[in-house]
């Protein structure tokens, strides 16, 4: 699947949301899209899904069966969960029995006769996921799929994604919750400055390697360089770096101030080579409670910042 010189804006004189984006997504790819709020992540997902046509450029090679799970499932519809999913199965040319496996895997058995309008946020999200999965998708688009999910569904989702790529499908995920943290074999794409840039491609996990064979490494190219983006290979995963032993004493928003008597910060933090950043890059040190370090790093990384955690020499850990 290829995006060629793809540009999008909402009106003729409106600013470009995405401008001349080029992107190749090979079969068997899981791509995680990150970026700030309003950067154009959901727009990119809708362009990929084919629900929104690009203003310029084109998308080729889109698989015929697309599953799209929106960030917020529209519950303002006069159906029960079972009736709604049966209707969506009918639109896809399937019988109502097609919903059964997903009811079980996503833990929705108790929800079937509940009106959509009475669902909690997480339960509604499950319905959105289930309708996207009714027919085996060649392209699965998930907009913030981990938002509000319970532990069972949260654990099941990566396995479902692996099943899609195992059959040669493509999965594209917008993920502020960092639900794919530690999941290997994920192409990380950053949306910002009207463009899409690859942050890196983790090595495939054993599961993905055996299930899907060798994953073809996707490539992405853009015409507009982003000064903030560095290789994701330089980013340790939060799980590997956030096990800080004790909390620091203060929060420091300024790079010139180091909390708890720690030594002055280096130009580039440990784990992030200075060569990976642009000339205009600066380092901001943020001291946080040890228990919050992982969450802060996840949020920063979801926004595309090369955040790392390093322990303070005497006081605890630090997210940067």
């Amino acid at each position: 699947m290829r995006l060629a010189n793809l540009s999008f804006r909402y009106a003729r004189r409106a600013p470009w949301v995405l401008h001349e984006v080029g992107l190749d997504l090979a079969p068997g790819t899981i791509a995680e899209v990150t970026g700030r709020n309003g950067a154009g992540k959901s727009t990119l997902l809708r362009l990929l899904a084919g629900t929104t046509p690009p203003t310029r450029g084109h998308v080729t090679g889109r698989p015929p069966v697309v599953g799209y799970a929106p960030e917020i499932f529209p519950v303002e519809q006069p159906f029960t969960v079972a009736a709604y999913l049966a209707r969506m199965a009918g639109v896809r040319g399937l019988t109502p029995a097609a919903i059964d496996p997903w009811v079980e895997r996503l833990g929705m058995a108790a929800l079937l006769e509940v009106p959509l309008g009475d669902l909690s946020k997480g339960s509604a999200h499950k319905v959105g996921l289930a309708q996207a999965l009714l027919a085996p998708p060649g392209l699965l688009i998930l907009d913030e799929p981990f938002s509000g999910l319970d532990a069972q569904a949260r654990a099941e989702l990566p396995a479902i994604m692996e099943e899609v790529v195992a059959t040669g499908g493509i999965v594209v995920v917008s993920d502020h919750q960092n639900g794919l943290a530690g999941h290997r074999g994920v192409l990380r794409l950053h949306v910002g400055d009207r463009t899409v840039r690859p942050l890196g491609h983790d090595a495939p996990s054993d599961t993905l390697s055996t299930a899907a064979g060798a994953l073809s490494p996707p490539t992405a190219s853009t015409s507009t360089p982003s000064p903030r983006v560095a290789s994701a290979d330089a980013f340790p995963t939060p799980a590997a770096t956030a096990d800080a032993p004790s909390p620091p004493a203060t929060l420091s928003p300024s790079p010139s101030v180091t909390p708890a008597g720690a030594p002055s910060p280096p130009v580039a933090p440990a784990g992030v080579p200075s060569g990976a950043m642009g000339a205009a890059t600066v380092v901001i040190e943020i001291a946080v409670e040890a228990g919050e370090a992982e969450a802060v790093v996840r949020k920063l990384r979801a926004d595309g910042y090369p955040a790392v955690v390093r322990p303070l020499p005497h006081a605890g850990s630090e997210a940067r």
Partner: protein
Amino acid sequence: MRATVSLTQFKIATYVRSHRVLHPFAGLLAIMIVLYSVRVAPGTELSSYADSAALLVPVFAWAARGLLDAEPDVQRLISATAAGRPGREVAGGLAASAAVNAVLAALALAVPLAIGFTGTPGAVVLLGGLALHVLSLVTGTALGALTSRPILPDPGVSALALLGGYVAMLLVSLAPIAWLTVPIIGWMRAAGRPGFLGGHLPELAVITAFWCALALAAYIRLRRTRP
């Protein structure tokens, strides 16, 4: 085709269950009361059908707009991906609107037969009435689609555009040049003259079909960038 039919059924079910369907039926009831509270004299049945067709245009438009707006915006995106391509979602919406309006039109044709006409009219009147209500249905569906939420997101602007569009068609069709708009006044004038089916109806149908095709083409074109 199967996806479009399933989507059409889904949209009709959404519309009916949301109870928005009561609005156009209330409008139809009001028009039936106005037209047929006094029995129609023999020989003027076709004129009554023409009045009914002309008055029902905004009712058909309201029904089409209400149906197309019944589902949330994001559901249209889900439906488009489920159906395979966005064009099927647009086609499903238009087919569902036409189906609901066909029920309204059938009632508008049947009610006077039961309580409005003095006697049962002949086949020419029935065929003429059917043709006029088909023209009205298509006109109303096109007007309702062009004022639906994907095209005009503001509900106030949308309602004004719907009513304004209808009034504009009425006023412009008063002009002696028939081709300027959908000739709603022309329907009523021609229905009172002899030889309506073979003489005037074909020309009125062609003019109406032209403007409705133009409006529906504009709607389909606009929906490409307004999913």
